[in-house]
């Protein structure tokens, strides 16, 4: 009996509740409600600069990196040193256990005269043909130029003039907690796709990227992350502190990165010349139990910068480039601010005699 009565109350009250609620209009905290139109406007302002990138052909190696356990190592093709570096800047993206995507990808116009920035992910197969479709439907074939592997960026050039360049928000003005929309064209639609989130952190991946909880996946790699007004915060790319190719395995997990494009004009200029920037690698393992200041070397890897510079187990790294090392994690950052080929000054306290010496090291590749 009691149950019956209860349910009767439910039934009569429900439509009423729904009605009054809807009549009231917008509720007190309309933040989520307000998003709709603002997103539309923001996307509209940036969409002329967003292009679709389709790739054809290429080296379709899905797994070319380390063999998985139990899998025999694949013979690698012999290295051909004679090949023109400019023409073929990279090999296939190594991503053990993760297949690369074959669908269209996204790029962003960064200059009027046809330079387009995109994610390396889209070009991981080293495609023979790259087709770029502009917002107005025009199609171009694109040529590939340099790249920044520390940011996961690649540069394309199409033969077009007067392309619309979006507005950028300088990296220093991006704040944690602001809305962020990832816009892309990966499903080949006229209207770009939108993923919503906020800026989760700034200065991630050695101050090269902002972090967002908007879903980042092959569906929007290469597209811009924009703010409420349509200003570009960065380019959505798969990144990870682990290396220059990982990160895509975190797709749609709320951990996404957008490589910042402001303040790297010199790098972009070099990339237009075909330069490839790679992650710097010192080659030391640090003792996690040492809390700092300084970082204590646990071991060094053979054939690395550290090995060449004769850094030994037990040595204490005190400074990098004049900046004191706070702890081992900080050391990774200080090295990470550089790219392979940079020379840095390292202040080192030898374990053997306790003497502090300064050495100059050329950082290598991984």
């Amino acid at each position: 009996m009691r149950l019956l009565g209860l349910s009767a109350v439910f039934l009569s009250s429900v439509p009423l509740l729904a009605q009054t609620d809807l009549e009231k209009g917008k509720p007190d905290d309309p933040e989520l409600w307000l998003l709709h139109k603002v997103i539309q406007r923001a996307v509209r302002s940036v969409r002329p600069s967003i292009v679709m990138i389709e790739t054809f052909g290429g080296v379709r190696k899905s797994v070319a990196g380390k063999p998985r356990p139990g899998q025999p190592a694949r013979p690698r093709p012999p290295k051909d040193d004679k090949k023109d570096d400019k023409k073929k800047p990279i090999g296939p993206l190594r991503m053990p256990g993760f297949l690369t995507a074959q669908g269209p990808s996204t790029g962003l116009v960064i200059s009027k005269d046809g330079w387009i920035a995109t994610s390396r992910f889209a070009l991981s197969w080293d495609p023979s043909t790259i087709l770029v479709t502009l917002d107005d439907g025009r199609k171009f074939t694109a040529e590939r130029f340099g790249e920044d592997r520390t940011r996961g960026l690649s540069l394309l050039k199409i033969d077009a003039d007067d392309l619309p360049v979006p507005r950028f928000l300088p990296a220093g003005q991006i704040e944690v907690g602001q809305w962020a929309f990832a816009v892309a064209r990966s499903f080949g639609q006229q209207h770009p796709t939108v993923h919503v989130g906020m800026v989760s952190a700034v200065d991630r991946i050695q101050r090269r990227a902002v972090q967002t909880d908007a879903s980042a996946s092959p569906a929007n790699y290469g597209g811009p992350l924009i703010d409420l007004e349509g200003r570009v915060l960065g380019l959505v790319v798969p990144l990870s502190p682990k290396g220059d190719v990982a990160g895509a395995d975190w797709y749609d997990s709320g951990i996404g990165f957008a490589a910042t494009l402001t303040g790297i004009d010199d790098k972009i200029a070099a990339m237009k010349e075909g330069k490839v920037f790679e992650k710097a690698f010192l080659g030391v393992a640090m003792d996690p139990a040492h809390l700092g200041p300084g970082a204590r070397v646990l071991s060094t890897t053979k054939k690395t910068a550290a090995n060449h510079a004769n850094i030994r187990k037990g040595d204490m790294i005190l400074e990098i480039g004049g900046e004191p090392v706070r702890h081992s994690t900080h050391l990774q950052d200080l090295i990470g601010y550089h790219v392979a080929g940079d020379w840095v000054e390292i202040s080192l306290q030898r374990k053997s005699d306790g003497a502090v010496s300064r050495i100059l090291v050329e950082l290598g590749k991984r």
Partner: protein
Amino acid sequence: MTPAAVAVLLIVLSPCGASNTNDGDDDLARLRKAENRRRQLLASLEPAVCSVMSLKAQGGGSGVIFSPRGWILTNYHVTGRNKVMKIGLPDGKFYLSDVIGVDPGGDIAVCALRKRGPLAGGKWPHVRLGDSDRLKIGGLTYAMGNPFLLATDFKPTMTIGIVSGLHRYQGGTGPNQRVLSYPDCIQVDTPINPGNSGGPLFDENGLLVGINGRITIRDRGRVNTGVGFAVSINQIKNFLPGLLAGEHTEHGTLDMNAWNLPDPNTGRGEGIFLQGMLADSVVADAGLQLGDKITSFNGGPLRWTNDLARWVGVLPAGYEVTLGYRRFDERTRSYLEERVVSLRLAPIDTGSKHDKHPNVPDWNERPDFEALRAAEAAKDKKEGKKEKEEEQAEPLQEGERGKPVPMPGTGRRWEDLPQPYRKILPREWKDKKLPPEWWKRLPPDWRKRVPKDSWKKLPEIPKDEAKEKKRDLDREEALFRYMDGVMAEFRGKLAGALAGVDAGDRTLRVQVERVAGGERIEFQRTWVATGDDLRVTERGKTTTLSAAEAGSDLKSSLRRERDMNPLLQPQRLVDQLKDAYLEGGVFIGNRVGYVVAIRGPGRRAVFLDAEGLFPIGYRYRSFADGGIREVQFREFERLADRLYPKQAEVRLRGKTVEHWTFAPAQDRVGFVSMHERGLPVPRADVQTRIEPLFKSVVKIHGASGLRGIPGYGTGLVVSSRGHVLTWTHVSLLQGRCRIVFEDGSVHEYVRHREHPDLGVTILKPAGDLDPQKVPFVPLELPAEKTTYEAGTPVLSVGNSFKLAEFAERVSVTFGVVVSTVRSDLRLNLRKFPFKGDVLIVDAPSNWGTQGGGLFTLDGKLIGLLTTLAESAETNTQLSLAIPAYELAAFVAQATGRRKEAVDIASKRARERRAKPPVYTGIQLFEAARTLSPPAYIDRVLPRSPAAKARLRPDDLIVRVNEFPIRTCAEFRRALRNFGPGDEVDLTYKRGSRVRKVGLTLEAKR
């Protein structure tokens, strides 16, 4: 024009209205304002969020500082059995902290930072504890932490999302799922990933409402899939006093099994019946028998066993609860009146692996004083003898035998010496290095004791050692006895007070006599509340505090007394007393003063300052040497109608090691409640619109699935007769299933109609479903085609991972429409029946959400969630929904009252069959490889359609109409969609130019 073209057109046109732009301006300004508010809020919370790592291992988790003293809440699975954790704070530095209390059962640990904080007075930036019971489904939440240890500078990752579900029960691991269980957790779609463990979950006001600790993952590995769980802060508050007291807190249990069963006695209705218990369990002691129907818990009615599991799960062992039950009387064939028994929860054994954290002292341990005395006596005798021998054999004198005594303590500081030495040595040496040969200043018999090797081994008690120890043992034993006595007394008083107070009676007397530090304190306090006045009588002196005469100070103090003092509110007394021991914390100046709770029998107690019971002493564990110290207060000063200590004596192993003095007026000495009052209430958000949706979304339980394929799903009520629309799924294979409505009632359903092209099924009730008895609201499906622009905010409602059972609410996640895409064109989905426009959303799909609803924020149905689709295009899993307008016609037909024949034969399948193969005259360059190469034309046959269109070898085909062509295989597949005579547009690349040409297809020759 094809439907796809229409959709595209609409999408392009729709945002062009002028009114939209104005609205947008307004919205943008408001959103900016809200965004700024959030930015400031998050920035203010950031300094208290930290990374928690063990000293050795590479992994780690997160944590949050919740007190100015530098106490950190984190997960037990982050600290484990480590004693010391390193804490990375957003200033980029590491700090050391000690694990001081653990709750393995509830996956919580508390660490204390060793250093004083950077703020004024040595305080740490900290967050405020909120009230998790005030959360609403749909409310905004922020998670912070260090997922994947991304933050090399320890600046936390902050993510936003909504509350997807409340009061979720998630079993733990180990025997009976007793370790790391989440009995009453908060489910959020706020992204939480490995490394977020132990990090804070904040509500929109920035109050700490939970500790993130768990996610449910799919087959793609350890990343967030939109389902995260946080231990609710209200559960943590129940354990916090114990954790701060340095305890290994234990969860309570009733030691029984009870099940939701159809009534075996009367055959009508359902109930919770006691099906098993331990012979010596607390319920058996309380008089319950097998087969009893359990009706209430702690005064609240009980309907599902899940409720019982949840309510018991958040309580510590020793907590007093009431259980109501009804026994079936065989003679009268009816249930007896409900009987309510009061019992104490028994501790759960969490398993030996988690017992005895190395940092946690065993508070239950009682020194065997007799044995200790005997041992002392024996030792004294022996040492006394030895000493004499030593004295005779080796009278150590300075410079004797030509060997100068090394200089112990040289270079050390005065402070480093044991206290007895400091007493003797000159005080001018304080804060200075010890002079060489400092021991010469010692009396001759002391000097002998300074050993040769190390100053560190200075004997601690130079003289009268045995005597003092003996005396200390006596005092220690007395203290133990005394504290037990006080505790019993306190409990007795409260129980007495409880018995004596009923509604209307507003008088209460508490009388306590105790001896503290040799002083006898008699204490009697009486409160009489009449109207707005409060009369407080203490030691024969009566103070009347009246609102009229007292002025604002007294008024507020009066109000505070009335608000804070549960004893003055008879109606709340029962509730408050239930957690009387949970409400407590003693802050004494800057000293680390730990709350010690008044716990079950045999527990150490330190005191609550509420109700005039000032702290007279407590015990804590020192970080410096790990010793357990007793603090006893002496001399009290009255301030604002409370007594505060002015002096305290700190004793270690019976010896006084420190004296503290307080200036009560300046030092913060007082009572701090864990349950803060006057917290900001979360604002109403979308939850008001969400609430009605639960009456339309039902849980489906069908055939148990194969491994990895769930046997459950979600459905939408679509007719007034209770028809349910769902996605065709393995769980419906048997043709019969059970459907659970919002009220928890379970109904048998059978398959009614299935549409193979849409991939949906309509179920109907197996029997009659009385709409009067089952509270459901049928949903309306829009009949006209509607476009949903990318960026439209949506709610996805479905029973992901079967997290909701019976009357529990299904999960709600927030997202936006990502895009509307032709599923056959662009997604390259495998085994996906529906060919047409689908909605891609960024609200995650999970196992069990298939058949759920996609709603706009104002509660309108816009789509039916499908199974998790894997797109070969992006190589990712996508959340898809079929637009509701596509289903409207089928639903109307299938649920119509008229029994007309429904044509559900696959129209598209027939069309497809009707299309004969076509001829283009294009031969592609296709080498025999495992992967199909790009569609380069190898040959164009003469007089073919391709020749007419002037295609040439080496042209690269990239499109056929809107079908993207990346490979030769895709070209062939695309042509299957057309018949002879159809005109298609072919896009191709020649050189670096891209062109388009029309092609009229011919029948295959």
